[in-house]
């Protein structure tokens, strides 16, 4: 009896054309979306922790709400905006990887912001008091605070990347799961399941997990080396 695990290994070893394409599309979507979210979310999150102004609480609550934005709602929003009759139709992005990336950035950036904000606001008072006591200016204090959160950035990136490869609702809506073009691991698993082909679905799931495991190990090794 061929187990799903064996089939997964066979799939990988055979270098199946379609599987290679699915993995490649998955990475073409996940890496840009998680990196862009990180580049946007880290400064914004630290800035939110760093600044004190009227209405800050409202912004924090708003961001927490966006952290819980259901992917299908985000997908629907992007669909309405970018579809053939939507206001952004001229970009012609419907059913393309760039639109999948846009939808994921909308989903993941609030998570990065929230994560960085909650971490940064714990160390902000001490960093601010210390740096202010040395007579450093606001700009330098902000840069110092970003530098102090750099280890958190790794785990936040992992969170964002994990969310990105695991996401299916928004991606299937704006990507359309077009074979050899926008079909990613999750939508492929859904397709196989819909056809009643569970084994292939599980095999893809195992490959997805293995990818996540490799990335986690790599990042934790880098992190360990840096903090030593």
């Amino acid at each position, binding site marked *: 009896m061929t187990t799903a695990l064996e089939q997964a290994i066979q799939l990988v070893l055979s270098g199946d054309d379609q599987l290679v394409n699915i993995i490649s599309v998955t990475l073409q979507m996940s890496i840009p979306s998680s990196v862009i979210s990180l580049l946007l979310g880290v400064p914004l999150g630290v800035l939110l922790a760093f600044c004190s102004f009227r209405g800050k609480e409202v912004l924090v609550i708003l961001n927490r709400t966006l952290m819980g934005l259901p992917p299908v709602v985000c997908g629907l929003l992007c669909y309405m905006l970018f579809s053939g009759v939507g206001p952004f139709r001229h970009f012609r992005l419907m059913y393309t990887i760039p639109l999948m990336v846009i939808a994921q950035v909308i989903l993941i950036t609030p998570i990065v912001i929230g994560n960085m904000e909650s971490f940064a606001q714990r*160390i902000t008072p*001490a*960093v*601010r*008091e*210390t*740096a*202010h*006591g*040395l*007579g*450093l200016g606001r700009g330098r204090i902000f840069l*110092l605070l970003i*530098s*102090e959160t*750099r*280890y958190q950035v790794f785990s936040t990136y992992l969170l964002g990347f994990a969310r990105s490869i695991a996401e299916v609702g928004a991606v299937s809506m704006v990507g359309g799961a077009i074979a050899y073009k926008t079909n990613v691991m999750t939508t492929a698993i859904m397709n196989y399941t819909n056809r009643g082909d569970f084994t292939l679905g599980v095999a893809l799931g195992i490959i997805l997990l293995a990818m996540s495991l490799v990335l986690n190990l790599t990042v934790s090794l880098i992190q360990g080396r840096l*903090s*030593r």
Partner: protein
Amino acid sequence: MTIAPFRKSYAGATALDFPGAPLPAGQTCAVIGANGSGKSTLAKVTAGVTACGQPQVLSPPVSVGYLPQHSYPFQMTVRANLMLNAPRRNDPARQRADMLLERLEIAHLSEQKAHHLSGGETARMVLARLLMRRYDLLILDEPTAAMDIRSTALTEQLVADYQAETGCGVLWITHSLKQAVRIADTVLFLCRGRLAEAGPAERLLTAPQTSELRQFLDFYGV
């Protein structure tokens, strides 16, 4: 230099009602008092890191170096922490960093990550970091609380030398009466958010005028 009168409250409760005090340049003023008497509040407000409704309590506005009670070791090497506060990244600054680390006996730690130091090592590192630059007034909030006797002596000597070199004033918060005797020209005694007694160190510690200070001295056995 003088500290203007101010009142600082947290969430409606008055933490410190301060009537003002002079801070002569070249002199050390020790602040003593029980926990919660308002010592750290005095340091923070004077340093300008905590607002109290007045734009400036220190006059004239001079450059202030403030060492908070829990000064934060930035996640970089000890040397990088010091260079962070150098006015310029040049050879004199590097030599000054070496000298300060040497004097506080942590030169061997200069390439270690600051957030991996012990409590006493951290306390010396953050002091060295502060002294990288020239200030008109040093405000030190219990800088030796985590140090052993030897490090405490090194610290007191280093601050005295810095003062002799720069002619700065020092506001030194301490919970140790013995330390106050060693370092202070004048003493401020805070009790329950008020300035209970102030004056030359000699007189305050030998002939207290108020019952609060008398009780305090009796209790700590000087």
